[in-house]
C-alpha cells in the first residue's frame, strides 16, 4: 500500500469527468445477450433527472467506461435504468454486476428527444434492435401524460423473436388507448406468429396522420437511412423527423474529440438530431 499525499474526496458535481457512485438494485435479463440494469444513487440524493434520449457514461471499477443511453422512466426521479447488450469485455463486466455493486455514473449528457415539439401531435417511434432502449423513456413519458400527446405509434424491428426487448411492456403498451404497437423480426421461426420482414414493412399497417406527426427513430445507421426515406414517402416533413446518432466516445463532454460527426459532437450537439441537420452526412461513407 503506497502512501499518498493529500487524499480528499472532492465534490463530484464540480468536475464532469468524475463519476458519481450508484448502487445496482437489480439486473434483468431481456434476451440472451441483453440486460437491463437499474441503479439508484449511493448518497440517496435525487440528482437532476434526465431527458429521454440522453445518455450516461457508465464506469465499472478499474475496467472502463461506456456511453449508454438511459432507458428508464424519467418520472422515477434519481433512479436510472440502462439496457446493455453484452458484446465485449466492458459491456460484459457491466451486465455482470450484482445487486449491491457500485458503478460510476457521469451525466446525463446530450440532447433529448423533442417532446415539447411533440405536444399535441401524434408521436411515431421507429426502433431497430437495441435502438428501442433510448426510445423507451419517450413511450413512458407519452403514456404517463396521455392527454398532452396525440396517437402513439411504435414500429419496432428486431433480428429474431429471441431478440425482442421488453416483451411484456410491448403487450401492455399495445393495450393503451390511441396507441398502436407493431413488432417485426428479420428472421422468424415457425413459432413466431407476428410480422416477419424489415421494419419498413410495418408502415402499411400503421395508422398515421403524417401532417400532424413527429417521428423519432433509433437503430443501426443504415436502418435509420431507409426508415427516414420511408417516412418521407409516407408524407412526413423532414423537419418533423428526429434521429439518434452514435459514435465512439471517451469523455461525453466535448473534449476528447472522438464523437465528431462532421462538425457535430454527438455527445453535446446530439445524440438526438433533427433529421434535416444531419441528412447530408448520413450518405457519406467513412465520415
Amino acid at each position: 500500500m503506497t502512501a499518498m499525499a493529500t487524499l480528499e474526496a472532492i465534490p463530484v458535481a464540480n468536475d464532469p469527468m468524475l463519476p458519481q457512485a450508484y448502487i445496482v438494485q437489480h439486473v434483468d435479463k431481456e434476451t440472451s445477450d441483453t440486460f437491463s440494469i437499474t441503479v439508484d444513487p449511493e448518497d440517496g440524493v435525487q440528482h437532476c433527472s434526465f431527458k429521454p434520449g440522453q445518455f450516461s457514461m457508465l464506469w465499472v471499477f478499474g475496467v472502463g467506461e461506456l456511453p449508454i443511453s438511459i432507458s428508464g422512466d424519467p418520472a422515477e426521479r434519481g433512479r436510472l435504468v440502462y439496457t446493455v447488450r453484452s458484446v465485449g469485455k466492458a459491456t460484459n463486466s457491466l451486465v455482470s454486476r450484482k445487486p449491491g455493486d457500485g458503478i460510476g455514473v457521469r451525466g446525463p449528457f446530450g440532447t433529448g428527444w423533442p417532446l415539447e415539439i411533440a405536444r399535441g401531435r401524434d408521436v411515431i417511434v421507429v426502433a431497430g434492435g437495441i435502438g428501442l432502449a433510448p426510445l423507451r423513456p419517450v413511450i413512458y413519458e407519452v403514456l404517463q401524460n396521455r392527454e398532452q400527446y396525440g396517437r402513439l405509434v411504435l414500429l419496432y424491428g428486431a433480428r429474431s423473436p429471441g431478440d425482442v426487448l421488453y416483451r411484456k411492456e410491448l403487450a401492455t403498451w399495445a393495450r393503451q388507448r390511441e396507441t398502436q404497437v407493431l413488432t417485426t423480426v428479420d428472421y422468424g421461426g415457425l413459432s413466431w406468429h407476428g410480422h416477419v420482414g424489415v421494419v419498413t414493412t410495418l408502415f402499411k399497417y400503421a395508422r398515421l396522420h403524417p401532417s400532424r406527426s413527429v417521428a423519432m427513430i433509433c437503430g443501426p445507421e443504415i436502418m435509420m437511412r431507409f426508415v427516414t426515406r420511408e417516412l418521407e414517402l409516407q408524407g412526413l416533413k423532414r423537419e418533423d423527423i428526429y434521429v439518434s446518432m452514435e459514435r465512439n466516445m471517451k469523455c461525453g463532454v466535448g473534449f476528447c474529440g472522438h464523437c465528431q460527426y462532421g462538425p457535430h459532437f454527438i455527445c453535446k450537439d446530439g445524440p438526438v438530431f433533427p433529421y434535416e441537420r444531419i441528412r447530408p452526412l448520413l450518405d457519406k461513407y467513412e465520415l
Partner: protein
Amino acid sequence: METLERIIAEHPFFAGLESYYTGLLTGCASNVRFPAGSYIFKEGEPANHFYLIRSGKVALELFPPHDRPITVETLEQGEVLGWSWLLPPYVWTFHGHATQETRAIALDGKCLRAKCEQNHDLGYEVWKRFAQLMVRRLHATRLQLLDIYAVK
C-alpha cells in the same frame, strides 16, 4: 355482398386500373378462404395462382435442409401473394402458410397468362404492378440480408 369485380377494383394492388381490364381480371378470379394453420402452397409445387389478400396473415417459409425452418416474410391485408405464376418454370419457391384464417381473391394464372398474351395492354398493366412489387420486395430482402442487428 360485394362483387368480385368491385373487390378487385378496390384492392390497392390494382388501383388505377381501367374498368375494362378489371373486367378481364374478374374472369380469372374467385373467392377463397384458407383455414388458420393450412398451407396454401408448398415449395416446388406448380404455381398457377396469385392471391390478393383481403384479411388474415400468410407466412412465407423456407425449410432449408439440416437447419431450422425460417419465415422470411409475412403478408397481410392489402398485400399480394405470389408471382411465380408469371414466369417459367411456374413453380413456387416458398411455402405459403396461412398462420391466421385468410380470405383472398385467387386469380388463375393460366387464365391470366393467356389473356395477357392476347391483350398486351392488359399484360403491361399487370407487369407494371408486379415489377414494382418485386422491386419493393427485393429491396426489403436486401436489407434483411444486411443483418443489421447482428453483433459484429
